[in-house]
């Protein structure tokens, strides 16, 4: 028996066939020779051998099939055992290098953890389908104004489109937000609610937890008034008692029969509430009473379900065509725009999340570069090990595989810790940063996110592992044996690559720092915009009067006037006012007629309209710049008056004296009002927006059933709130306060987006800076360690400590400057992408660039300082001893 065939270990698929042929040929040859030995001529012997053998090609095919099966099984087993071996080896390496493993794992965990958090947010907010039935076919419809702005529909328009949209939509529903005080069950409470078209629950797939949903006939005015309540309200106010069905509730002083309870699921929340986070406690059918709503009032949200196979572009096109056909000179019909409801819910978060995702990707890249760097440094130390393995016959592919396995194992370790960090990250975003994004409450780290993280970890392992693995596979057997093992030779290229990596990290950090700086400045600019009012020590609450008890303007005004005078007398209250809309939050606006001026329809002057009490401007400490404030004489029956803001005067009455001019906020449908004063601009819209023209109208000359009370006082805000609640309660126990807040809360809410983006990006940039510093420190201190002999020799030859330090610093600054230059160019090119997130600062703001560069340079030099200091302690003797 000979030794096993040398080719066996590396048998290839082609060998299988050759071996079968060789075996069969051997048999036939032996037979032939046997017959020849008995005296048969050669050709005769061959024929006989073949006949004896049988059908050669059939037997060959059969044998080959079996062998190929055998070969594949063996190849599979070999791969598996190689993989098991690689992983086992990787685990051992990881275990035997605890310090390195700790640093690498932490770095990777940071990168992977932050990426996991961002993925879970993007997944929950943007990627997952909406919670409704056939969510992909839902479209939100809004009306397009002449100016191009999209606004909700009016009630008559909803009725029109319900009929006219049938060619493209399977169904059209609508709703509007409302609120009603619930009384007669314990303390009165203002409930947020909704009036919905009765087809909406079926269209969205919302089914009741208890009872039933609405019937079509319940939209008619003559039907018995019915209400559905939320599971939350049912548990909170009715102790989860199923007897609530059929019970009559007093809402706004009128009776409504409870017919069902909607579950507290995501699906029970309409699209705009998914977006805003508002909760609903009751639902009522759209009623005929609201059909009397004026055509100019736009408050209805419309949602449609596409007919199967209808592209969304067709909807807008078809509906606009219909609008054009229905339009008449006197009665223009506005076109509609259909947007996928999912897009509508996501709103403007797409841009912000895109920016955050890009930042996280940069951070992850930096983390990868750092770990790759550490691995390269270690590779130099492992030159001998690699050389020995190559000498023992390890193939290049085998070496690469093994080192990649090690990297992937390290990345998975980082991934595990990263997931733990991600849980913390999501918690911090929710409870620390109080992030408010559409559907943010659904953001969790579930199996979908975990699967992403697993994939990401493997990918990360391959990314940071590939360069070190390829480098090591170049291992030279001679290295293992000769003196060259000291690793001076061949490490030059590796060191250059490592410095390139760190320069890249510096550049990427610079980009992140600039972005973070720009957003921080944006935040600061938004915070410091002139408000036009004093926000501190002011509380506010909505007081809404139920129609049943306050059906006319006389009774409404009487209640509000009485409330104001009682509040003014209350201890601790400095000033009290009322307004129909609060600053920053925005309110109703509309066209204005100005005496003596005519405009083409699309240039009709617009203004925000605020119905206020005379004390409102005083309570807000707004300044009257010209004319006078409202006076007690500005009442119903007196001369109609208004005040305007500076923006109004500037925009609509340029170069004229506003005071004394006559205008009409009803677009010329009633008696003109005289402008008696001009108010310094208050932020009547979002903080970042230009201040819109606004008019202030005394409530004493209007009919209004709901106003915000605004109370300024020296006492703490909870106390002020109590005073308001008790005063209102003492006047009418059926009235409940709603939206109780301080003006500072509103202000904080107004800068919430800027605060969150600046904090998140600031955190990412800080982490990037830290990682880049660690990377730089690693590279420089490694090179100092490698140059021990050289530095010692220099010291022996008389180099001073400052010379040695300069030598090391020069190396560090080389990397730093290269990184800064590339980073600055990159940031310069990229920062335009976030221009739409910025306010009050240009995307190429020189100060931000300068500060980011200085900060980066300072941290980088600090990271270089420690190894440089070590270099100065170089011992001349060391140089000799080492040889």
């Amino acid at each position, binding site marked *: 028996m*000979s030794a096993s065939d040398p080719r066996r270990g590396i048998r290839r698929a082609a060998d299988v066939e050759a071996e079968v042929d060789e075996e069969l040929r*051997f*048999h036939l040859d032996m037979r032939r020779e046997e017959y020849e030995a008995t005296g048969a001529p050669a050709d005769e012997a061959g024929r006989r051998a073949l006949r004896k053998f*049988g*059908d050669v090609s059939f*037997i060959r095919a059969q044998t080959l099939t079996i062998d190929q099966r055998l070969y594949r099984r063996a190849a599979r087993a070999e791969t598996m055992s190689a993989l098991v071996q690689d992983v086992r080896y990787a685990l051992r390496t990881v275990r035997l290098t605890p310090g390195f493993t700790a640093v690498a794992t932490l770095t990777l965990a940071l990168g992977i953890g932050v990426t996991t958090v961002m993925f879970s947010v993007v997944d929950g907010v943007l990627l997952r389908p909406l919670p409704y039935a056939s969510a992909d076919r839902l479209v939100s419809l809004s009306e397009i104004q002449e100016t191009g702005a999209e606004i909700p529909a009016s009630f008559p328009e909803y009725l029109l489109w319900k009929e006219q949209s049938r060619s493209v939509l399977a169904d059209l529903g609508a709703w509007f937000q409302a609120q009603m005080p619930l009384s007669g069950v314990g303390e009165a409470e203002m409930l947020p609610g909704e009036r919905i078209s009765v087809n909406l629950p079926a269209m969205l797939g919302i089914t009741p937890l208890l009872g039933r949903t609405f019937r079509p006939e319940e939209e008619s005015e003559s039907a018995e008034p019915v209400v559905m309540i939320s599971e939350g309200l049912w548990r909170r106010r009715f102790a989860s008692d199923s007897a609530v069905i059929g019970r009559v509730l007093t809402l706004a002083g009128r009776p409504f029969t409870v017919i069902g309870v909607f579950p507290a699921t995501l699906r029970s929340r309409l699209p705009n509430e998914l977006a805003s986070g508002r909760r609903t406690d009751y639902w009522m059918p759209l009623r005929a009473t609201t059909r009397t709503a004026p055509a100019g009032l736009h408050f209805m949200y419309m949602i449609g379900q596409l007919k199967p196979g209808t592209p969304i572009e067709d909807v807008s096109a078809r509906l606009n065509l219909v609008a054009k056909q229905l339009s008449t000179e006197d009665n223009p019909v506005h076109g509609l725009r259909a947007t996928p409801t999912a897009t509508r819910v996501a709103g403007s978060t797409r841009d912000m999340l895109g920016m955050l995702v890009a930042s996280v990707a940069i951070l992850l890249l930096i983390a990868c570069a750092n770990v790759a760097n550490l691995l390269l440094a270690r590779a130099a130390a492992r030159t001998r090990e690699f050389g020995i393995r190559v000498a023992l016959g390890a193939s290049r592919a085998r070496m690469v595989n093994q080192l990649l396995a090690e990297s992937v194992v390290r990345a998975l370790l980082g991934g595990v810790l990263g997931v733990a960090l991600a849980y913390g990250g999501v918690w911090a975003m929710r409870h620390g940063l109080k992030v408010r994004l559409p559907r943010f409450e659904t953001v969790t780290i579930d199996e979908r996110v975990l699967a992403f993280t697993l994939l990401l970890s493997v990918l990360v392992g391959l990314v940071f592992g590939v360069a070190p693995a390829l480098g090591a596979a170049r291992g030279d057997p001679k290295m293992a044996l000769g003196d060259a093992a000291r690793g001076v030779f061949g490490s030059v290229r590796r060191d250059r690559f490592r410095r390139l990596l760190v320069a890249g990290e510096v550049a990427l950090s610079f980009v992140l720092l600039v972005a973070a700086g720009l957003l921080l400045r944006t935040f600061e600019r938004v915070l410091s915009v002139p408000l036009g009012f004093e926000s501190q020590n002011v509380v506010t609450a909505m007081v809404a009067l139920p129609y049943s008890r306050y059906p006319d303007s006389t009774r409404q005004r009487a209640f509000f006037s009485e409330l104001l005078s009682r509040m003014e007398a209350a201890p601790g209250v400095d000033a009290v006012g009322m307004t129909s809309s609060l600053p920053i939050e925005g309110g109703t606006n509309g066209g204005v007629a100005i005496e003596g001026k005519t405009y083409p329809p699309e240039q009709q002057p617009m203004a925000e309209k605020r119905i206020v009490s005379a004390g409102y401007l005083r309570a807000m400490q707004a300044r009257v710049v010209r004319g006078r404030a409202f006076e007690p004489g500005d009442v119903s029956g007196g001369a109609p008056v208004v005040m305007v803001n500076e923006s109004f005067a500037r925009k609509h009455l340029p170069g004229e004296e506003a005071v004394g001019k006559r205008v009409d906020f009803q677009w010329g449908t009633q008696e003109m009002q005289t402008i008696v004063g001009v108010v310094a601009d208050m932020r009547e819209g979002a903080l970042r927006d230009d201040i819109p023209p606004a008019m202030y109208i005394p409530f004493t000359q209007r009919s209004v059933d709901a106003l915000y009370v605004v109370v300024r006082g020296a006492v703490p805000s909870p106390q002020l709130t109590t005073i308001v609640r008790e005063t209102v309660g003492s006047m009418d126990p059926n009235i409940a306060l709603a939206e109780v807040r301080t003006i500072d809360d509103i202000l904080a809410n107004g800068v919430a987006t800027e605060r969150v983006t600046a904090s998140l990006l600031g955190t990412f940039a800080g982490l990037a800076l830290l990682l880049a510093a660690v990377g730089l420190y690693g590279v420089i201190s490694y090179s100092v360690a490698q140059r021990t002999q050289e530095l010692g020799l220099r010291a022996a030859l008389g180099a001073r400590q400052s010379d040695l330090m300069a030598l090391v610093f020069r190396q560090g600054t080389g990397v730093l400057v290269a990184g800064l230059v590339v980073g600055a160019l990159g940031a310069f090119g990229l920062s335009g992408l976030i221009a739409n997130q910025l306010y009050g600062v240009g995307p190429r703001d020189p100060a931000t660039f300068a500060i980011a560069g200085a900060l980066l340079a300072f941290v980088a030099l600090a990271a270089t300082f420690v190894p440089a200091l070590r270099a100065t302690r170089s011992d001349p003797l060391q140089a000799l001893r080492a040889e």
Partner: protein
Amino acid sequence: MTASIDILRGTLDLLLLKALSWGPRHGYDIARWIEFATADVLDVGEGTLYPALHRLEEKGWVVAEWGASERNRRAKYYSLTMSGRAQLKAEKQNWTRYAQAVFSALEAPSLAESR
């Protein structure tokens, strides 16, 4: 001729295992032994032993290894594994029992006669 092959189909594995029971052999040796031991029952179609041998290898009863033949040519040698040896023992018992049963059946009188 066809009859002889049919008989072998069930018992070829057993013959192959037996052929290897004295030590490693290549296919030609095995063929010769069968020819000798069974009075040439294979006759033509002795090639069928190759798929059979390879199937035994797949089952793990034999292992194959390349070696040099008596005339210094490369030849594939087969040898029994532990499980192959066990299989041979089991098959042999089965076959003997079966053959004895068939044999005694052929010798047995009719049921009516024996009563």
